[in-house]
């Protein structure tokens, strides 16, 4: 039987990035994907004729430009378009907009607080400083602080030097940033509730924490450290939806001679004498591989795909306790016309940006209270975009695709599994919120895809539907991601590697975990890595 050089479990963006780099290093690589399409959580699917949805992830910023270049993704159709600002609608019939133009942004904030308008520069400076500190760490394997290997010592030294290079004020800020709640952090700069709510949303997206929970300040940073073509912190739409990212990756992989098998769900990883030897598909088919790379999250990989007896107790316990709690849902809507928001002028650029309806920190925190009680939020927080205002490829002219990221949605409802009735109730809470601000909204709906944690886990395979494959709290970052001692993409099973967002540097459509895992694998195989660009300089 043929033995592949490497088998990658899961055709999400990290699995494909990993497969691309391995294939380009001369390995013979097979990607096995359970769905009959690739993409994982970066997909574009046509569920109703004429409309493409970005079914899960919906905006792009974190995807590393070094990877786009190495894997020639533009040649395979990837284009990312920056989008314009956004807004929070307020309950009293106004809105707070974010504009790309610095002075318009200031004037808009000054409508609510002249002080806060002028506080923005210091806020932006501090966030930028922290992003510059973290960015170079994204494309490096986290050092093992307990190891005495020269490489780990070198990496630790690099980290230490970077930290020592900060001023006393910056060091203090770094530690605060990694541990504070986003609410406390914003209190240091702003006084106006709606302005704080406007920024706080980046601190809770994808996280089973509220804006007042410690650790959420870092989540905000995680959303700011990306870029669109050098514009740091900017977000954009992938033309053709987020599936364009994985479509380009798959095409790049195939062009390099790789092989993809869809509708091939892995039942378990074949382990012999503590070493991975391949995978067994759900239908019993055995595929041999010299090594196996899992793009599935760490829980799915080690609690479902590997037999417990193959794993050390402490590792198992830590994997079981890894926080990967479901906190969000997603509603994709096909609209027969552009929704109107009477409060928003028709020529406002906000239609081409992200829109929100949660205008206070308290509402955001209350929405989280519902989650803690095991309910979806009665007054949910939405991150809503209409990519078709900038991307003509996703809907017929005049018609639109709207993406609503919804928080919070618990993994179980009152302790039991989600039902179809729950799903409909969840959708109604979202639609009714939008309709409050957009009269006639319901009448524009042509089709709708509602995804609770149940649907996301079932289709994409993300445990509890957690979009980051594990929360981005400091206890689960760097050399602790996913668990201490196994932060370098290897596992207790020889030849079994991890490459998903459960690993450093974490979630978002970034590609860095897939790339870094490939670098480690090639190191183990003593293969050259010249085809892998180092991280771009941060100067």
């Amino acid at each position, binding site marked *: 039987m043929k033995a592949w050089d490497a088998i990658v479990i899961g055709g999400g963006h990290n699995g494909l990035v990993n497969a691309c780099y391995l294939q380009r290093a001369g390995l013979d690589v097979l990607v096995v994907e359970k769905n009959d399409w690739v993409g994982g959580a970066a997909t574009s699917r046509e569920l109703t004729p004429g409309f493409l949805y970005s079914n899960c992830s919906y905006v792009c910023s974190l995807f590393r430009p070094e990877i786009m270049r190495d894997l020639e993704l533009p040649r395979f159709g990837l284009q990312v378009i920056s989008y314009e600002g956004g807004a929070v609608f307020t*309950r*009293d*019939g*106004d*809105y707070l*907009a974010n*504009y790309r*133009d*610095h*002075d*318009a942004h*200031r*004037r*808009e904030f000054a*409508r609510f607080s*002249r*002080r*806060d*308008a*002028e*506080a923005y*520069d*210091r806020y932006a*400076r501090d966030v*930028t*400083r922290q992003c*510059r500190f973290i960015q170079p760490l994204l494309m490096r394997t986290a050092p093992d602080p307990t190891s005495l290997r020269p490489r780990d010592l070198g990496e630790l030294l690099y980290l230490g030097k970077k930290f020592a290079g*900060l*001023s006393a*004020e*910056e060091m203090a800020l770094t530690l605060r940033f990694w541990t504070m709640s986003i609410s406390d952090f914003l209190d240091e*700069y702003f006084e106006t509730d709606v302005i704080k709510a406007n920024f706080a949303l980046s601190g809770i997206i994808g996280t089973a924490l509220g804006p007042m929970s410690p650790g959420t300040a870092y989540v905000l940073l995680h959303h700011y450290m990306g870029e669109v073509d050098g514009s740091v912190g900017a977000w954009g739409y992938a033309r053709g939806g987020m599936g364009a990212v994985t479509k380009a990756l798959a095409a790049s992989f195939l062009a390099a001679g790789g092989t993809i098998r869809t509708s091939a769900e892995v039942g378990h990883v074949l382990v012999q004498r503590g070493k991975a030897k391949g995978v067994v598909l759900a239908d019993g088919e055995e595929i041999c591989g010299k090594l196996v790379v899992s793009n599935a999250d760490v829980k799915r990989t080690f609690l479902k795909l590997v037999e417990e007896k193959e794993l050390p107790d402490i590792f198992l316990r830590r994997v079981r306790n890894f926080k990967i709690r479901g906190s969000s849902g997603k509603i994709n809507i096909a609209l027969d016309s552009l929704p109107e928001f*009477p*409060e928003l*002028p028709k*020529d*406002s*650029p906000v239609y081409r940006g992200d829109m929100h309806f949660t205008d206070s920190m308290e*509402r955001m925190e*209350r929405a989280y*209270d*519902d989650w803690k009680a095991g*309910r979806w*939020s*009665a*007054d949910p927080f939405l991150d809503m975009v209409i990519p078709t205002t900038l991307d003509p490829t996703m809907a017929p002219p005049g018609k639109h695709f709207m993406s609503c990221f919804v928080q919070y949605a618990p993994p179980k409802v009152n302790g039991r599994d989600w039902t179809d009735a729950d799903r409909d109730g969840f959708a109604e*809470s979202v639609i*009714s*919120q939008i309709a*409050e*601000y957009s009269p006639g909204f319901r009448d524009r709906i042509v089709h709708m895809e509602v995804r609770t944690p149940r649907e996301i886990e079932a289709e994409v395979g993300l445990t509890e539907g957690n979009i980051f494959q594990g929360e981005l709290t400091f206890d689960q970052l760097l050399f602790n991601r996913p668990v201490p001692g196994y932060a370098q993409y290897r596992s207790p099973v020889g030849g079994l590697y991890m490459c998903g967002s459960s690993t450093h540097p974490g979630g978002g459509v970034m590609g860095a975990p897939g790339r870094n895992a490939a670098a480690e694998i090639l190191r183990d195989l003593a293969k050259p890595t010249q085809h892998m660009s180092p991280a771009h300089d941060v100067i």
Partner: protein
Amino acid sequence: MAQAIKKKSSAPTSPARTAAQSHFRTLRLGTPFQPRIDVLARTNDWYNWAGYRAPHSLWDEELEYFAIRSQAALFDISPMTKYRIEGKDAEAFLNRVTLRDVTKLKPGRVHYTAWCDDEGFVLDDGTLFRLSPTRFRLCSQERHLPWLLDSAIGFDVTVEEETEAIAGLALQGPTSFAVLRDAGFAGVERLKIFDLAEFPLGGGTVTISRTGFTGDLGYELFAPAEQAISLWDRLMVAGELRGIRAIGYTALNRARLEAGLIVANADFVTSEHAIRADRLRMPDEIGLGFMIDLEKGHFNGRRAILEARAKRKLRHVLVGLEIEGNIPAEHAIVYHRKSQEVGLVSAAMWSPMAKRNIAIASLARPFGDTMVDDLWVEIYAMRELQYQRLMKRAKVVPRPFIKLDRRTANPPADF
């Protein structure tokens, strides 16, 4: 289950709110003088000054410069950030915030000052106008409302941003006094350098100070935005026979360089905008050490400044350079012995008034401080798609590069 939180109202948006929201349609505001400036803008050469549409030039940047030095030049300074600071403790508050001793600033006087964060790094420089014993106006390049409000805790003082409400004009040049006198501002001849006084204008007043950014005889005028057009017209009519011309920033920038004056975020990076920690500067590092008054009691940054001076932690120095030849050395690297990189030129020009090639540069101490010999600048002059690389000798010289008696002469000369 908790309830969905509904909108409080769907009442039609008020006209005032709609008007306030509509700013996104005009990304660059006009100043109160814009109707007059637009008519004079032959070059349509605009730049963004703090969100305003401001002219680089209006008709000819060379000739606009000579208007400053030979006649009277009118420059719109309305986009400058302005704060009104008022109250019983206004003096004590400003003494705490800024470097200089504000108790020595009498009502009716102006001084050039700067202010620092608690680490002693310069937040900005600007001019402080004492309009009355309890009322001040602070003018600056950047915005500082959070800093000023936070610093005001414990003081009986109010701080209000009044940039849009107050129109500002600089009238600079040898005939500027005569223009003001002929415009009917009786008593303006009594203003000595850094004096200010209020004069009737329409139903209100205009504040005229003998200040400016050119090193020449000149005045600055501040009036409510509604009075702007009538003020402009009055000056233009009065100045017609004395060669008054409106100018853009390029001309003004030349004049300020000859006067040896620095510009925030051009010659140094302000601390609230410096992303790279090594770009921060203490007053002693950008030539503003003379402002620091250690006798006056505590002020923001005092401890850090004292420590840096004591422990010799001042790493940079800002100097004036005279460079051989006549090729401007803008953004050239400064070398010691033609080999060791020791600094950067932030502004440079051939000075028509000094007939010298001048520059402002930031150097790493001890260069420019105790070691001033054997300094060179490397000029890359682009000429027809080729760099002409020149290594020219640079000499540290005192600023200002030009000193004009007419700037301070009393009574002011009547040209």
